[in-house]
């Protein structure tokens, strides 16, 4: 009986251990990956929807095809592209 409970407990400890290791190492990497991904998203919208800022890059006929997918991001993206850099950039 005690033998059966043992591995379970071990797994629990292992799980906690995994979470701690994740928190110490991977969490920062994940955050970095997510942030890089977000920057790339902005770059992507700039390239495809640059016309909205007056920067024509992708031919409009084709950028229109992509427009529906990025519609929700457009407002936030324009704000980000046009704003001055400030302290929140450091914190963000």
């Amino acid at each position, binding site marked *: 009986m005690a033998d059966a409970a043992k591995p379970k407990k071990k797994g629990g400890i292992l799980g906690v251990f995994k979470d701690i290791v*994740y928190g110490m190492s*991977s*969490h920062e*990497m*994940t955050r970095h*990956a*997510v942030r*890089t*991904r977000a920057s*790339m*998203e902005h*770059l*992507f919208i700039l*390239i*495809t*929807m640059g*016309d*909205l800022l007056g920067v*024509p*890059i*992708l*031919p*409009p*006929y*084709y*950028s*229109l*095809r*992509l*427009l*529906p*997918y*990025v*519609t*929700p991001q*457009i*407002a936030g993206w324009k704000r980000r592209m046009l704003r001055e850099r400030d302290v929140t950039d450091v914190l963000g």
Partner: protein
Amino acid sequence: MSLRHVFESQPDRRYVMFGGKGGLGKTTLSATSAFWLARQGKRVLLFSVDPQASLSDIFQRDIFGKGPVPIMENLWAQEVDADRRIKDYQEEIRKKILDMYGFEKVPEEIDNYIAAASAEPAMEESAIFDAVVDIIVQGDYDYYIYDLVPLGHALYYLSMAKVYDEWINKITKLRADMGQYDQVAATMRREETVQEDAILSELIYIKERINASSRILTDKARTAFFFVVVPEEMIILDTKKAAELFAKFDVPLSGYIVNRVLPPDLGAGTIPPYLRNRIAMQKKYLDEIKGTFGHEVLAYVPEMERDVTGLGMIERLARRLFEEGS
């Protein structure tokens, strides 16, 4: 080598185009070739994307924006209405946004962007070539004869297609990289794998469309591109220049057709000096054409005594061009 010989010896070349400056007789030669091929039992679609298309004029009936219209047995003609196509396309995008997000109306900023996009000059060229891809991928005909817009537009589009293609490659790569970051973040958080990226699929679709449209102009196995030239100095110079540019973009040139050749018996007897000068001048330029394009000239098409409009005149010209030799 004659035009007939090109069609008979290269049956795979099913995308036929006549290029040249405006007003040299591209539409006449397109219609005449289409007529002859249809008479040979081939199913032929003759189409134009030029907003000032002349197919309606040559067949003497209004076919603008009406899809493929039957002209005679085996021959259909189509004039694409590019403006309407752009409007329909914009409407399609608006509808997609409404459907995707359940909006009552398209947000103003987005709607302005859609409206403004149609004013871009590249919009029309893209829409035109996209329409051509649509027509050709359907594959219902043996021959597609493309009454080409003037040379400048075709060159502009080809150069644009090259730039677009490189751009799309870059954007597609960026999008694929973004997918990898998604994947990394998901794996680290021990989440399920991320959904397939709809944008990446769209990009791949766009890339294929752009490639398909430039391939139609440059496919060595299936495209036959003919230059129409007339015996006049400026036209000869322009054609030489255009031929070099087209060669740069790998457009397979199949030969030259010399149009508007004055009948030789015109010079017989006493004729006014004006006409004599014109004949002498034309002879000089015909010699120049022979010297420059030599054996690549497939036909010398005589100046007819009246406009080539209506099937009767087209048939007469087809007989001259394909049956009697030239």
